[in-house]
């Protein structure tokens, strides 16, 4: 054992240390690859962990909860309390608000503090005194730091003062406010209504208890296990996390090419050494294992460094993710980042796995070196002759397989086959690379590009195995950038066009308390009528939305004024359905339309019946049509306002769309609207502002994607630098000979840069072709199956050109140092080295 370790150190570790820069570059590449995976995983966990926050942890674990869209009548609680079963019931009234001072969103939870005395986080003698004052709250640390403080809260469109009576502790409760149930009903405008009833069963409860409870509930009410909401949110976030996770592996895939390259070079250089060791009695297994171990060492060290890098990157990733989650999924306060055993395990697992897997081929090659190679005369041909034609057949086979996979359905709701298609395409490109380089290098470019380029190209061809791997890594990274660039560019353009067409009103009005994801903050119902009386205003359209859950996923139920929507709105329906006909029927009864993400998530088609429990009644709506919508991923079920008011008689709108009279002056109209809203906490947003805001959110959502792309590219460029360094070292004899033959130092430098330039250009051409195909898969398979958006293909030409230019520049920069090294080689020393 000790002998092995010593041998490993002397034969593999020492040479690594002898080339510290190249070793460091390889390690850096692995570390970045692992770091990104670690960062996204831990940030994703923290972001998802936050859902398990205010809603469920306030008073410990319940067993079940009773809910209904639009809330429950208070009488239900009394009715259930009279049941002759041993259950305890805890009513909840919930809503969102904002701190007036900072605008920070907070979660309000109303509970029966006296009845729950023992379990509530609030208790003691002062509770009763505090309850005598109506504006008492208990809150988490993000809201206030000391009891006795006074804070101003915006709830719906009203600001009020509250006194902090005490602080509550607990994971995820930082921005939670607790108040007594009556005060909550009043402040949240939910008189006589409850949002949930938490149910606890005694330990020994028989299944009969649950059955009795179920019997006692009216039809339009949901009894579900406690924590279902958290689960729903997590499930909804799953696609987002899954896709980010997959993107986070790109850098690692690029890293795999580089590990392969490093180990392959290590094997190539050591053929004589390996032959000698075999002559000295080393077995094939020992030789193969040694190279796997060398790679594993890179993997393990890279993973260790990657954990550190991941830790740093996770902070940024979490910030970006949390803001996306807040605006698009559900208001949350991220859980703290934790680097526990699972994350450390993940880092080492992916680091070692990718290292060993990518070293497999070179290690097998090493094991195949015959002992007689130690005795072979002269220099053998290092580079394995690549079976160029056989590889092309493989390319075709892989590409066809990719085509087939891209046609497949989602598996388990995930675009697994889509990702498989992408990986197959990358492999196809990697296999085609040697043939491509071979073909280009054969062209007689001397006249066109000078003798340095010719020699450079011949050099690439001579070391086909090596240059093909490098070009493959760079092409993969470039392809990813192009594909994701096209996806994001197309998506943005689609959204932008949609916004332009969709946002027809001149102004929009929202309660100040409204958050990105929840729709529970509303406006004073009287406001719409007041605004309609203004001279400048032609029409006021009321929109109401509720947060509901549908088939175990969060969704929105919305009500529109159908006749206004017909007159002003510009909904577009999928499959060429007639808009007029649909909207005409929508206003006439229990009909609904649904947004595209909602319909594709639940597999719904026009004609289907949607069953919704509404405030204690079961309602059924026939789905008339599916319309394009890019506002959020949860998706909307939209019904007529009057129809919904029949079930949920709350007239308060979630937002108002204001249409100005033709020819009205915007500035004076705005002033008039603001005057009319004086004293109310509302947000008035112009059409242009709303559009800008939407695109800003869009860009922020994809910022993390860009960051991941940039890192993958950096890994490729780092690999390029490392490999060119190795090239200079291995060809120093040839380079020195060129000097003896009269080449100037600057010519040698140009040779190296020329080689990098040729390689970079090839990689970019191949990467662009691959990137276009990957973009199609991303847009029409992966995105469609994950999120359900229909995206029109657009070419963000400027962006792509800039990205490619940047990559090319980086490649040349990566060649500069190795080229300088080559220029400074002392030819005399090199030739006399042996």
């Amino acid at each position, binding site marked *: 054992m000790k002998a092995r370790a010593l041998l490993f150190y002397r034969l593999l570790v020492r040479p690594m240390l002898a080339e510290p820069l190249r070793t460091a570059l390889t390690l850096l590449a692995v570390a970045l690859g692992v770091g990104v995976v670690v960062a996204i995983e831990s940030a994703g966990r923290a972001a998802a962990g936050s859902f398990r926050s205010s809603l469920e942890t306030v008073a410990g674990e319940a067993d079940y909860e009773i809910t209904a869209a639009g809330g429950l009548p208070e009488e239900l609680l009394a009715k259930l309390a009279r049941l002759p079963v041993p259950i305890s019931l805890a009513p909840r009234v919930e809503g969102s608000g904002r701190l007036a001072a900072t605008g920070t969103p907070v979660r309000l939870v109303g509970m029966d503090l006296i009845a729950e005395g023992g379990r509530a986080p609030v208790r003691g003698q002062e509770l009763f005194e505090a309850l005598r004052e109506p504006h008492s709250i208990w809150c988490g640390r993000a809201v206030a730091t000391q009891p006795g403080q006074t804070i101003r809260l915006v709830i719906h469109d009203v600001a009020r003062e509250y006194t902090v009576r005490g602080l509550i502790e607990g994971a995820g409760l930082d921005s939670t406010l607790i108040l007594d149930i009556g005060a909550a009903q009043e402040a949240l405008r939910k008189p006589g209504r409850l949002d949930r009833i938490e149910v606890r069963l005694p330990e020994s409860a028989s299944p009969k208890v649950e059955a009795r409870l179920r019997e006692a509930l009216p039809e339009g009410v949901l009894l579900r296990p406690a924590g279902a909401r958290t689960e729903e949110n997590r499930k909804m976030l799953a696609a987002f996390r899954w896709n980010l996770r997959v993107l986070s592996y790109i850098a690692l895939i690029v890293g795999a090419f580089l590990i392969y390259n490093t180990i392959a070079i290590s094997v190539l250089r050591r053929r004589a050494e390996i032959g000698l060791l075999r*002559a000295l009695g080393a077995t094939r297994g020992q030789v193969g294992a040694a190279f796997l171990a060398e790679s594993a060492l890179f993997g393990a060290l890279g993973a260790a460094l990657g954990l550190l890098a991941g830790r740093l990157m996770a902070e940024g990733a979490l910030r970006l993710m949390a803001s996306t989650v807040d605006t698009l999924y559900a208001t949350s306060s991220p859980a703290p980042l934790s680097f526990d055993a699972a994350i450390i395990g993940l880092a080492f697992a992916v680091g070692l796995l990718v290292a060993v897997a990518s070293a497999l081929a070179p290690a097998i090659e090493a094991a195949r070196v015959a002992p007689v190679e130690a005795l072979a005369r002269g220099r053998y041909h290092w580079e394995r002759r690549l079976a160029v034609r056989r590889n092309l057949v493989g390319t075709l086979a892989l590409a066809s397989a990719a085509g087939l996979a891209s046609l497949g359905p989602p598996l388990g709701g995930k675009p697994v086959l889509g990702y498989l298609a992408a990986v197959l395409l990358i492999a196809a490109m990697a296999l085609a690379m040697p043939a491509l380089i071979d073909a280009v290098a054969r062209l007689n470019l001397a006249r066109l590009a000078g003798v340095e380029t010719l020699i450079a190209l011949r050099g690439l061809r001579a070391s086909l195995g090596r240059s093909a791997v490098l070009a493959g890594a760079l092409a993969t990274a470039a392809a990813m950038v192009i594909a994701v660039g096209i996806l994001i560019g197309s998506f943005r353009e689609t959204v932008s066009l949609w916004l332009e067409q969709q946002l027809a009103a001149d102004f929009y009005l929202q309660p100040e308390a409204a958050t990105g994801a929840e729709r529970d903050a509303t406006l004073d119902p009287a406001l719409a009528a007041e605004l309609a009386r203004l001279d400048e205003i032609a029409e006021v359209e009321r929109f109401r939305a509720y947060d509901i859950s549908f088939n175990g996923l969060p969704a929105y139920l919305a009500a529109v004024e159908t006749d206004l929507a017909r007159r002003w709105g510009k909904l577009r329906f999928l499959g060429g359905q007639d808009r007029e006909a649909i909207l005409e029927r929508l206003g006439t009864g229990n009909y609904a339309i649904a947004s595209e993400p909602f319909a594709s998530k639940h597999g719904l088609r026009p004609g289907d019946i949607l069953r919704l429990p509404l405030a204690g009644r079961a309602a059924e709506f026939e789905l008339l049509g599916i319309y394009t919508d890019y506002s959020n991923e949860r998706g909307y079920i939209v019904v007529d306002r009057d129809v919904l008011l029949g079930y949920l008689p709350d007239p308060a709108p979630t937002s108002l769309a204001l249409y100005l009279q033709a020819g009205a002056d915007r500035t004076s109209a705005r002033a008039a609207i603001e005057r009319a809203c004086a004293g109310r906490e509302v947000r008035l947003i112009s059409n242009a502002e709303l559009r800008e805001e939407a695109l800003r959110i869009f860009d922020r959502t994809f910022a993390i994607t860009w960051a991941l792309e940039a890192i993958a590219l950096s890994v490729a460029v780092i690999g390029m630098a490392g490999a060119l360094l190795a090239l200079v070292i291995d060809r120093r004899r040839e380079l020195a000979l060129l000097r003896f033959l009269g080449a100037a130092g600057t010519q040698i430098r140009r040779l190296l840069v020329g080689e990098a330039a040729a390689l970079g250009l090839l990689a970019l051409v191949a990467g662009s072709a691959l990137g276009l195909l990957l973009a199609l898969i991303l847009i029409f398979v992966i995105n469609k199956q994950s999120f359900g958006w229909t995206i029109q293909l657009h070419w963000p030409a400027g962006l792509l050109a800039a990205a490619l230019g940047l990559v090319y520049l980086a490649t040349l920069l990566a060649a500069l140092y190795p080229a300088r090294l080559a220029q400074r080689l002392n030819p005399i020393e090199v030739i006399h080295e042996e």
Partner: protein
Amino acid sequence: MALLELEEVSKSYRTDGVTVEALRGVSLEVDAGEFVALVGRSGCGKTTLLNLAGAMDQPTAGEVRIAGVSTRRLNDAALARLRRTSVGFVFQSFQLLGTLTAVENVELPLLVAGQAGARRAALERLDWVGLADLANRYPHQLSGGQMQRVAIARALAASPRLILADEPTGNLDSATAESIVGLLGRIASEQGAAVLMATHSQEAAAACHRLIRLRDGRIEAIEETGRR
């Protein structure tokens, strides 16, 4: 029983559809304590013969026995074990690892075999070839003759009973060559190993006990030099 026995050994290579008969029915025996030279012009099959004799490769036909063990039925791992314990190689171009010091190079076969106490054994061998003082030098700090001595010390490291040398003096001046051949001779006489050396040099061949002339893969003649 002879230490090395070749019985009707043939070896052919196939490259690009052409078959080259490197050895054609060679039979010979080398005893323990014997120092034998293998001569013949370039391409006559010397290296091929040494490879087969050293269990580095399998013959196309015939049988090779090292210390009575036939290589025929051995798999790759068993061949490696046989080389480890019974054979020491010396090469024309020394084949020292440039990243290892002299003593570390000598330790190499012992480490490959997983043996303990490699350092002491290696230093003893270096002392035996007269290089105890240069143990910690790197190959590029040594002269050609010194490098070949280190290589010989390495061949002796595991105390093998068969030493094979492929043109060990090919890269050396004649004075240095003489001392290297002398060293190989001492391995046979003092340590009782069988030493088989391929060479071009008349002087080197003349220092051996026996001389085997190869021509086109066949033994042309076997001559006693009378120097036993």
